[in-house]
């Protein structure tokens, strides 16, 4: 902006990307119920055939999931489509508004971090939402603290699943779907993947709840894998997926380190659950449903 003013003719504004680094968001309060909603709009390219089928399917899926009114899934109140031009349709999603996400929630946690009882509660809800999605054959694929919403009453609500698909219409096979730090080894290795990817991400988030900072902060895929193996150890040759280009020889042999080195605050039960979530082999990784039944959640008096 300053540049434009100084040089006058050298630059001219082409398009407004949004109000600065962040755009603005429309938020509203229902005067009758006091409920808050927020809009999220997505522009979709269209052609003679109209809205891409993938978008239609995705919206249909979101709406179908909505009917279950799951407590741990962010509420989608409405989907409004407006034709902008012949080539573009704006799809506006009306969501319930939640004040903060887990990222902010963890940042705001006072120094000793979250009490174990709170972590248990958050994890229980997270897994509950996740097993709901998985049982409806929906992968989140991009679980991270930013899209786990936490209401002022401490209710966890998963957001952003399926939406990535609407943004791009075709992110189906793009390996960029999961943010690097929460990406599972099979995604990093570009192998086949399914619901276990979300459990890996959940494991990373679980550890982060204790540490108040991310567990594996890789700078590239290989770096991310290196950081992972420095904790869980280099998997054996027969565990290494066969359908990948990146060979096991690229990594130096390492034995598993005690998880308590990385997450010192964790309890013995917590450590057991965490290791089951951070299992290299996706087929041997714990499922959302089994994780909910893990003894970490069994009602023993907490010392916090």
């Amino acid at each position, binding site marked *: 902006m300053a540049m434009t003013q100084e040089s006058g003719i050298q630059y001219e504004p082409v398009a407004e*990307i*949004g*109000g600065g680094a*962040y*755009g*603005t*968001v*429309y938020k*509203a309060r*229902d*005067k009758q119920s006091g409920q808050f*909603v*927020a809009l*999220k*709009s997505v522009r979709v*390219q*269209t*052609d003679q*055939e109209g809205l*891409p*089928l*993938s*978008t239609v*399917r995705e919206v249909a899926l979101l709406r179908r999931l909505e009917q279950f009114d799951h407590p741990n899934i*962010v509420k989608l109140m*409405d989907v*409004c*489509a*407006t034709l902008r031009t012949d080539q*573009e349709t704006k799809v506006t999603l*009306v969501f319930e508004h*939640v*004040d903060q*996400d887990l990222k*902010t929630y963890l940042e705001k946690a006072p120094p000793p971090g979250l009490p174990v009882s709170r972590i248990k509660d958050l994890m229980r809800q997270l897994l509950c939402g996740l097993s709901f999605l998985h049982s409806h*054959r*929906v*992968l989140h694929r991009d679980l991270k603290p*930013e*899209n786990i919403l936490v209401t002022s009453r401490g209710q966890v609500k998963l957001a952003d699943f399926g939406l990535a*698909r609407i*943004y*791009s*219409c*075709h*992110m189906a*096979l*793009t*390996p*960029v779907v999961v*943010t*690097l730090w929460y990406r599972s080894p099979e995604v990093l290795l*570009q*192998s086949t*993947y*399914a*619901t276990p990817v979300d459990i890996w991400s959940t494991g990373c988030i679980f550890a982060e709840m204790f540490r108040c900072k991310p567990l594996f*902060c890789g700078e590239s*895929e290989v770096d991310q894998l290196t950081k992972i193996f420095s904790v869980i150890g280099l998997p054996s040759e027969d565990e290494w997926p066969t*359908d990948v280009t990146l060979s096991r020889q690229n990594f130096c042999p390492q034995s598993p380190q005690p998880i308590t080195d990385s997450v010192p605050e964790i309890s013995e039960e917590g450590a057991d659950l965490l290791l089951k979530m951070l299992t290299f082999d996706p087929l041997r990784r714990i499922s959302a449903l089994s994780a909910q039944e893990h003894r970490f959640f069994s009602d023993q008096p907490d010392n916090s």
Partner: protein
Amino acid sequence: MANVEIPSLLERHAARRTFPLLARTKVCRNLFGPVDHDELNCEMKKQLQEISERDQSRWNFNFEKNLPLPGSYEWEEILGQSVPSFYQDSVHNGRVRTVSLFNVKDAESTSECEYKNASALRKTAEEVQCSADAPDRSSDVNQENHSDAFNAGLRRLSNECHRRKRPSVPESLRINSTQITEFFPKRKKTIDSKQAECTPKTGSSIPIEVTPHKRIR
């Protein structure tokens, strides 16, 4: 033998290619009269308009112009920073418009949780590299990543989908036709006789459809 087989195969392929158009095949009948596309288009636009109006009054918000209206919802425009990044319209950047490849049907979208093909993933390795090189440390960096990822996805898809779509259609049709005819021996008779007409001496070059029929008999 070989020159008997080739024309019959070609014919079947040709028939298949015209099948979705429903125009040049003999079996095609216009059951509902001519369609006035302009009228239909008009009708659809009108309906969309009605839906939009309903949305607008339900939320007292003009979604087209992004303008709040007076009503039971008290709207306010707030800075993106003050809400979880999830609510951000992360795609609202101009670069998106330069890519227009949404015209392809996405075969994957219904099977979101199915296993993904690793080789398909590998094709995109270069793009991944460029978008993955910048890790997201904070939510604003993260947003950058989002749009990068988005565009990377788009760029790749232009090739991917076209490549995918084409071969998949005749493939499925072929499978279908074989299976269906197996269950309809009567209909197969006509195919059989037709086949006999155009290929007098079938011999061992019997089309796939015919073989099961003979086995049934």
